[in-house]
């Protein structure tokens, strides 16, 4: 579904990604794990079109999407939940969800979609008129995820969904990610919490200073002594 080949990205003189290749198949949950600064967020932002690639090719559903505008990428079915949630703080919960549906023009279908998001996240329904900045961290994560689902993406990119959340909430968010995947959305997940990410992923890539150093089945990687030592705190 998504295939990235030989991707190179730099921020001015700093090389952020070097020769990164990976692919995501329809229906999968693929995890990208690695330390802070390894380039995980850069990968997602390059796929979303926010960060330009120096060279390499990104293809989605067989079409080359390298270098096209971010809003065009959303239209093709890739949606991102950015790192740090990035809800529109001074807009209401409802308005945030409306922004997620920006590319859609069928008002009735959008209203139904909003209802679906409220069913998935009942807390958001209770707070639909509140400004997003008044929500707790967990609620903001739910809003950011609901908002990203509003465009009905085929592929959902999640950047550090567990960041800054209490362990109980992390479990809840990961359950929801699995539910979203079960209802037909392919997921690519970036996480520092490698334990959690590997527990729900089908496959994973390990990133170190801008390069893919390991990849494979998530269960096998979780059992790999090197991975356990470097990322699972053993």
């Amino acid at each position, binding site marked *: 579904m998504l295939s990235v080949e030989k991707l190179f990205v730099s921020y001015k003189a700093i090389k952020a990604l070097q020769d990164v290749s990976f692919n995501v198949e329809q229906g999968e949950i693929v995890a990208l794990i690695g330390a802070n600064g390894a380039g995980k967020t850069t990968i997602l932002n390059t796929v979303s079109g926010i960060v330009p690639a120096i060279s390499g090719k990104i293809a989605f559903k067989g079409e080359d999407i390298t270098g096209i505008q*971010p*809003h065009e990428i*959303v239209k093709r079915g890739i949606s991102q939940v950015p790192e740090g949630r990035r809800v*529109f703080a001074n807009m209401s919960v409802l*308005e945030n969800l409306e922004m*997620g549906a*920006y590319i859609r023009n069928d008002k009735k279908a959008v209203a139904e979609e909003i209802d679906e998001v409220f069913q998935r996240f009942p807390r958001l329904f209770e707070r639909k008129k509140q400004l997003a900045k008044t929500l707790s961290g967990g609620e903001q994560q739910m809003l950011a995820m609901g908002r990203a689902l509003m465009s009905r993406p085929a592929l959902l990119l999640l950047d550090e969904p567990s960041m800054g959340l209490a362990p109980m909430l992390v479990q809840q968010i990961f359950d929801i990610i699995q539910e979203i995947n079960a209802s037909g959305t392919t997921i690519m997940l970036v996480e520092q919490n490698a334990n959690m990410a590997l527990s729900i992923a089908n496959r994973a890539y390990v990133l170190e200073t801008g390069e893919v150093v390991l990849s494979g089945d998530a269960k096998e990687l979780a059992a790999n002594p090197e991975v356990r030592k470097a990322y699972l705190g053993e």
Partner: protein
Amino acid sequence: MNAQGTHMFFQQLINGIALGSTYALIALGYTMVYGIITLINFAHGEIFMAGAFVGLLLVATFKMNIFAAMVVSMLVCMVLGVLIELIAYRRLRKSSRLSALISAIGVSIFLATLAQMIFGANARSFPDDAFPVRQIHIGDADISTLQLLIIGVSALLMVALEYIVQRTKLGKAMRATSEDYNTAALMGINVNMIISFTFAIGSALAAAGGVLVGVLFNAVSFNMGLMAGLKAFAAAVLGGIGSIPGAMLGGLLLGVTEVMGVAAGYSSYRDAIAFFILVLVLLIRPTGLLGRKIQKKV
């Protein structure tokens, strides 16, 4: 306050609100553009000037009705504003803020000089019959039909703006883009289009202000954008740059204070009053009256 004093006060209040409404119209453009791309659009005063000239030309040469002329002038300036952003700012968006600011000053000088070349250095005036001015008595004070026009048109435009920004899809996308540019793009919002839209709206308001001021002072000149632009900028900062209600409040406040100051006998300090208030407010409240705390975008 005796009867004479009260009468004076209300009279000056009306004069001040009329003048302040025009400041507010211009200030809105500064604040909206700043809100969305953190650029002080120094060419905004010249868009106001261009609006006045287009209005004058239509009324004087083509004998157009003042209202129709205002609408056409707003449309022309929408295009002008969008073109300025496209030509002078867009490519500089990712460079330092200073580069865009210098480019804005360049556009400002270019437009003022161009207007001087085309229309000459002397101020021109609207024909006497452009708008029938009569005095209407309301209680103790007199209000002219011209002041009524200015206050009415400004109020109408501001209500329309508030509706667009709060209720429409484009307006909401504008707010989203001004809060977080990259995340707005991740929503599928075409941020370039939203930025053009913002310039169009701000320029249309400035053009309406230009026509109104041209009729009010009965003078349209190539350099009218400079002082009006600076004062409106002061109004935008006073209200809290980036805040739409702030620009409205700042404009009105500035207009009323200026007129009151002149009435109190400080007419030679007319232009200084605005900046004195600006300095005073910024000393006490650096974010302006309704400004949000500035959150550094990461």
